[in-house]
């Protein structure tokens, strides 16, 4: 709440001409403890995240010259016709169905793992059983495994020659299985620390007021987990929508199991760079909207709790 004028640092003498810079830098100093910390971070984010994403978006809007690779197409911008081309690219029936498949698969996977993540985190935090340390380490394994390996393993287990006699080749269930596997760590790890931080007093209070186990969980524990659950949901969703390796094999070659990432890959195989960038951009925008929504929602809940 304090205004810059109240801060002792602003009384000390840098030249008044640089007021704008000082206001900016004093804000940065308050969080990072060094001048220009904010600009450093913005620079880093730009190189690592913003510029590549902007390039994808820009490319998606560029006039389509399909045959000469990224470099050539990238520099041929005709923004007046850019949007029409972009719209045309993303409204192809194949593109729409791929994006639709990716969206509902990712949302359901994130939702299912949100539930399972809470359950697994609960068991890890509250229960004692032999081999717990092993399960604890095991949870993160999907992070470490190259996703193409996951794809191969799933194809072997649930492909047409399934040793388990479960054939999920070219079905949405196969895709879902792969996505559930690769996103699980996000859902568990998001909730676990929050569950660990609960001291149990609120639960004991609920109990002494007459609430049973289920009611205590739903009325008292779950509400404090919501922000973390939503955070995990967002991460799992983002991971699922961008996932390629683990689903590319089990998806096969059918249109109805072609996810957005698969579709984009197919476009790049045909050197349709601009189309690929356009669909990527659409996917990014949709993902961004969903991530912003979960974030806003989580923050709103968090503000009340803090």
């Amino acid at each position, binding site marked *: 709440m304090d205004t810059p004028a109240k801060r002792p640092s602003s009384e000390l003498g840098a030249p008044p001409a640089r007021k704008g810079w000082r206001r900016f830098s004093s804000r940065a100093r308050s969080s990072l403890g060094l001048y220009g910390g904010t600009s450093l971070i913005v620079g880093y984010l730009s190189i690592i995240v913003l510029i590549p994403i902007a390039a994808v978006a820009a490319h998606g809007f560029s006039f389509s010259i399909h045959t000469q690779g990224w470099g050539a197409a990238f520099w041929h911008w005709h923004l007046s016709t850019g949007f029409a081309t972009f719209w045309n690219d993303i409204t192809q029936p194949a593109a729409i169905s791929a994006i639709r498949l990716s969206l509902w698969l990712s949302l359901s996977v994130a939702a299912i793992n949100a539930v399972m993540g809470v359950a697994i985190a609960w068991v890890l935090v509250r229960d004692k059983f032999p081999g717990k340390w092993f399960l604890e380490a095991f949870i993160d394994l999907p992070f470490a495994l190259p996703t193409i390996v996951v794809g191969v393993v799933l194809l072997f287990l649930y492909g047409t020659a399934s040793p388990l006699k479960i054939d999920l080749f070219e079905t949405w269930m196969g895709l879902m299985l792969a996505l559930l596997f690769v996103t699980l760590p996000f859902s568990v790890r998001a909730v676990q620390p929050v569950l660990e931080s609960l001291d149990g*007093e609120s639960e004991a209070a609920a109990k002494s007021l*007459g609430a049973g186990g289920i009611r205590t969980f739903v*009325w008292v524990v779950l509400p404090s987990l919501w922000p973390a659950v939503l955070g995990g949901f967002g991460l799992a969703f983002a991971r699922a929508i961008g996932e390629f390796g683990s689903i590319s094999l089990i998806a096969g070659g059918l249109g109805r199991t072609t996810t957005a990432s698969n579709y984009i890959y197919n476009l790049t195989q045909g050197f349709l760079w601009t189309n690929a960038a356009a669909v990527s951009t659409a996917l990014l925008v949709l993902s961004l909207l969903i991530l912003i929504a979960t974030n806003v929602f989580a923050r709103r809940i968090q503000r009340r709790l803090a």
Partner: protein
Amino acid sequence: MSISLSHLTKRYGADTVVDDVTVEIPESSLTAVLGPSGSGKSTLLKLIAGLESPDEGRVVIEGDDVTDVDPRYRDIGFCFQHYAPFRHMNVARNIGFGLRVRKQPKDVIDAKVAELIELVRLDGKAKSYPAQLSGGERQRMALARALAIEPRVLLLDEPFGALDALVRTELRQWVKELHRQIKVTTILVTHDQDEAMEVADQLLIMHEGRIEQAGEPTELYERPATDFVHGFLGPTTMFKGVSVRPHDLELVPASEGAIEGTVQSIMELGFEVQVTVALSDGTAPWVQMSRNEFRNLHVEIGSLVSIRERD
């Protein structure tokens, strides 16, 4: 509604936290369980509430043996040390929690909540969230939440521990007054002897899991059963080889027939002054006196004085 505990014992591994506690807590009393940290007083409270289960012994409330009864069904109001507010619920919903669990009709809940909000002086705060309340307000909300279920017994675990000195004093008086109004049998746990003496009408001194002494505050202060109780309930100093209260000693101008010594240090604490006197036998008892007494004595460091027990 009286509570009787018999041979109550709780162990954590090799540690016996509550050790064979047998005590009767009178109906409608406000009892303070007093002891240093680690004396087992909080555990004793949790055993009564059923939040911990005893290894041995029974808990009987109003003649009902509740030892094996789930805490849900004990009808006990429990206030936690850190209040344990439901942070996602506003004050009114926090207070009404127990009533909603009991599936009371909405208008009954609303009326009861409104009444309690007034009782604990949280008017205007019904829609606030715990995060928006001060420590004292949170404490009062927790109290109202516990009272809402009309408990047979009210248990308060270090109720003023986390509050600053001013609020604490105020709230102590308020709890005492509240108890006078509603008369529910109340046990509060504290490590602060002033607090216990001020609020409670019954004291229970605990030490290393055992009850050292139980009774009325004045009785315990004047007739402590053990050295521990004596030492714990008020200041002590060694005089003639025994432990005495420093306000039971007095200084007089050096005279014959009394023990003489030199003033070693003087500590002025507002109304109270503490004077330490070095005696020839090597001991240095300190004497507690009022400011006026000190003024009339005309002593300074190095003065020769006589020390004796007050009549």
